[in-house]
């Protein structure tokens, strides 16, 4: 597996809404600020599978889709809109998504 460190595209509230519409995830915590505040969150949060997809996309960019057959990850923190995240991967296929302070996801790629 190739090692890499790359910047993820920054996802804002608009992207959360578009992603939710694509996969059918209409949980208001992803688009309704008042709802998020009721849950003691300072802002709406990203869908976990969206963070997962960003990490997978970075891995596909480095290795090619044909080189992979799976990806497994723990969602370790909610991601807020407009967070600048970096995706890293080591030679064993261990992936992390972080902004330097918070790790949002850690996971492992499965080679084909």
């Amino acid at each position, binding site marked *: 597996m190739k090692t890499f460190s790359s910047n993820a595209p920054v996802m804002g509230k608009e992207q959360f809404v578009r992603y939710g519409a694509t996969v059918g995830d*209409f949980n208001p915590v992803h688009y309704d600020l008042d709802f998020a505040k009721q849950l003691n969150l300072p802002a709406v949060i990203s869908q976990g599978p969206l963070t997962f997809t960003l990490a997978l996309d970075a891995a596909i960019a480095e290795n090619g889709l044909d080189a992979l057959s799976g990806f497994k990850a723990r969602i370790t923190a909610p991601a807020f809109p407009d967070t600048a995240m970096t995706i890293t991967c080591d030679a064993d296929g261990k992936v992390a998504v972080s902004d330097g302070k918070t790790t949002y996801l850690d996971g492992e790629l499965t080679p084909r």
Partner: protein
Amino acid sequence: MIPERKGTVLKTHRTRAYASRMADLEATLGTATAAETARVALFFGVTIGRDFDVLEKMGMVLDETLMGGHEITWTRPFEPDEEVVVTVTLADVLDKGKNRIAVIESRFDAPDGQEIQRQYSTFVHLGGAAREEASA
């Protein structure tokens, strides 16, 4: 009561890997490889059919539930507009302290039964175990 639900099929659903939704996901990601990524990350099995009824069937309250993990394995990418049969199953459920943890398997097959992709999604219902105990 809850452990007996392990293996229960929560939902079956026929849909398509709509090319339009692949294009939507590609546009959302906006990267050079987004079109390829959209062919494997098009679906989130738990919201297949466009609602969270699989969680509700297990007594998990949406605004008290966190996603703890996600896994996908695929034998091949989805073809644009191909028909897909989705089977969502409760793979595992356990109580840890006051919380209930559920693992949901979503299997995506071609109409001939050939497996295309499998997902495992882990959810943590905060206080879910304590609530079940109190109502027992």
